[in-house]
């Protein structure tokens, strides 16, 4: 390993916050979907009428959220694949740490993506505020 690759990975570039980006996007998507549906049904429409506008809004949230999650996951993947043969991710080097954080970011992005799709699936089935 060259010293330059070490220098590319200083600690200040890296923080634990990267791990939380995708789950936070999931949480934001979930909360936005819930609040949109709840406010729509409670304040805007009476209970028998259509949920269409809320469903469209949730679909838009979903696409936006998935883009964010995919980008985060891709960044994670790039970090996890830095010099894949040079070092294993449990080794005691900044590169090991870098790859670990990247891989964990990737995994959390996949989980968040699946969870976002699960939540979004609801609008395929629920057509009214009932």
């Amino acid at each position, binding site marked *: 390993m060259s010293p330059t690759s070490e220098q590319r990975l200083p600690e200040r570039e890296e923080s634990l916050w990267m791990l939380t980006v995708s789950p936070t996007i999931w*949480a934001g998507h979930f909360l936005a979907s*819930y609040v949109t549906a709840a406010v729509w049904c409670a304040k805007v429409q009476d209970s028998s009428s259509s*949920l269409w506008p809320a469903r469209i809004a949730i679909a838009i949230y979903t696409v936006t959220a998935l883009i964010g999650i995919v980008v985060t996951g891709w960044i994670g993947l790039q970090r996890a694949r830095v010099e894949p043969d040079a070092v294993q991710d449990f080794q*005691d080097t900044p590169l090991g740490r870098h790859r670990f954080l990247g891989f964990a970011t990737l995994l959390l992005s996949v989980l968040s993506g699946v969870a976002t799709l699960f939540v979004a699936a609801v609008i395929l089935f629920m057509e009214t505020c009932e």
Partner: protein
Amino acid sequence: MSARNDNPTRDDAAPSPERQREQEERLLAAWKTPTGLRYWSAVNNSEVGMWYTAASCLFFLFGGILALLMRVQLAVPGNDFLTADRYNQIFTMHGSVMMFLFAVPIFEAFSIMVLPEMLGARDLPFPRLSAYGFYSFVIGGIFVCGSVFFDAAPKGGWFMYPPLTTSYQPGIGADIWLLGLSFIEVASIAAAVELIVGVLKCRPPGMRIHLIPLYSWYILVVAGMILFAFPPLIAGDILLEMERAFDWPFFDPSRGGDPVLWQHLFWIFGHPEVYIVFLPSVALMAMIVPTFARTPIVGYSWVVLAAVGTGFLSFGLWVHHMFTVGLPGVTIGLFSAASQAVAIPTGVQLFCFLATLLAGRVINSVPIMFTFAGLATFIIGGLTGVMVAVAPFDFQAHDTYFVVGHLHYVLVGGTIFPIVAGAYYYFPLITGKKLSDRLGRIAFWLLLIGFNITFLPMHWTGLTGMPRRVFTYPANAGYDLLNMVSTVGAFLLAAGFVVVVWDIVRPKGNQPYSERNPWNAGTLEWLAEMPDRPWGIRSIPIIESRYPLWDQSDFARDVDEGRFYLPDAEEGLRETLVTSVIDARPMQCLRVPGPTFLTFWSAAFTGGMFIFATYHWWWPAILSGLAALATILRWLWTGTAWIPEKDEKDVGLGVTLPIYVSGPQAVGWWAMFITMLADMTAFIALVFGYFFYWTIHEDFPPEPYPGPGALWPSCGAVLLMSAWGLTVFAKRWNRDDRAGAFYAAATSAVVACLAGGAALVQGPLAAGLDPTTHVYPAIVWVLIGWTALHVALGILMLLYCMARRFAGKMTARHDADITNVTLYWHFLALTVVITVGVIVGFPLVA
């Protein structure tokens, strides 16, 4: 590998035996545990953690006895062993004790005890805070439990749904629950702050973020969850107690309130709570499994994924406790979907353990047997959990014995069995002696069989129609036999616990001490000597592996001979290392305070405030509160932000570190930041209440209630924002050593605060908003009151800083006090903006 490491390695030359002995003597003197009555003034993590663990185990036994009483009552239909009223008190207390006095505290207690050992730290960063939390917990716990013996216990269920607990249950039972447990919740948050800072900042040098023991990952996640989960419940407690004590109608539909708001706030806490209880036990499994499989964990990153992922997803599940409230189907669907998604990370964790077991050569022993029992039963709880997450099935299963069965499979399988495994595993670490293998195996079979006989039939009991929380049931409804079987099983289960308790308390005087690292584990805590020495660790090592005891050669010898950091206590003070968050580079030599009774008195007076308030004895409550404030101030004054005799210290291996640090590098700053996150969460929960009421009312503010007006709240906001600005300047001028400017700014800030707080209160006062008439004035007053209370605290902090500077305890260089107060003020400014924005701004736009 060491060449690439940016840390130095150990000292190649050990200090001479002579010098080693001197070092040991000094370390022993600094870390000496007080004796006699002063023993109870100890604040070191090993003492406090042990008391804390023992106390929560006693509460567990108490909760277990309550459960047996219930099972006796339900053994046969139409039984009159307990009256309805008694039974309702007992089931309420069983749930509350197990959740609030056992499940959450045991994890915090246990972590306080072993986390520093795992991280090679001498103590946690705020030992006195742990002691304060412990005494608060014991006082609050005894108060709440004691009510059972006076027939005055709460009887609203551990979920305390209003309006049953507001208008339909006179007496002090519900107040005991609300105030007693709020007190304990505050202690829980304090412990969470301590644990987060401990994991992030008090690791040994070289223990990078991907090398930390999995237990620490879980603790980090769980403590973070506590920060965001407990405050909504505290907000709910405030609302419910305000309704009970002062008739503010938050949950009274006849005056615009809504009982469903409580359910939201309770379950925003209540569902993450399940994972707060469950994840630490998984963390224990994550330590035990690799040890007995004799191999590193398979899929470390995957386990971290599962811990972090579960932590997040668990906040999107709360409505699945409310599927039958009659909410819109789309809401039910959203929460049903999230509830199923959370099963994915749980499955990943379990398969990592299975894969580790397969990858290694498993040594059979009591801890691994209980881990297996935990896995086998928890999986059933997880599978039934997925079932009830499917909303249509929950429509049937909700509030029946099916759920009683399900939750006990989760909590006993996922929590209790791993805790017993942990007890057998870690007992030598605590006492130096092993528990009995024979008794452990007897207990294993009794617990496993007794547990399944008790709880497996309950699934059928529930689906054949038996609701929960019934003190009796009719004969021949189809579940007489099932109930009898459950009762028999419960006694078998209890017998198993008796065996475990006996194994723990039986005299072990003749038993020799265990050898060091008896299980041949790889993680740092097993460096402890048998019996352990009070200093925690002889010298703080450099870590190069996830399993240093397996991978680093001569590791124990080097630690014992003091070849690593801080092998000495030259000044006779208690010291430990603070390192950086990601790569654990040494940053500071942290001096932690020693024994004191101040924490006990602070807790006693805080407890007095809550307990007197339960009886509506307002004056004693206020006096006790003031006494608590005085003792806490004294504690801060004498025990924090000491100005050291020198700026830097040689911690060994040629590394010199600062002793006094302020700002984002300091643990105190982190503690303030984390505490304020929790504080903001409680505040946001109250704001959520405002918007919740907005959604259920046609007009909000409703006719004929006027808003608080724009004038006074806006004046208040302007004044308070200028106080914030002045505080920021005070901090800057203090750092520039301009004493006059500092005092002037701080004094003006205090004046602006007083005026701003008064203006804020004047808003609803001038508009004549009476909080007992309708929920609108009530929620406005709560937001104003919350802000005003924080303004008062802000004033107190500014005065404190001025006094510190005046007394020479704060200087331009040593400015931790004003730095942390400024951080508080950033959050206070946000609180003010949101409060005024909501009560003045929102009605204009909505």
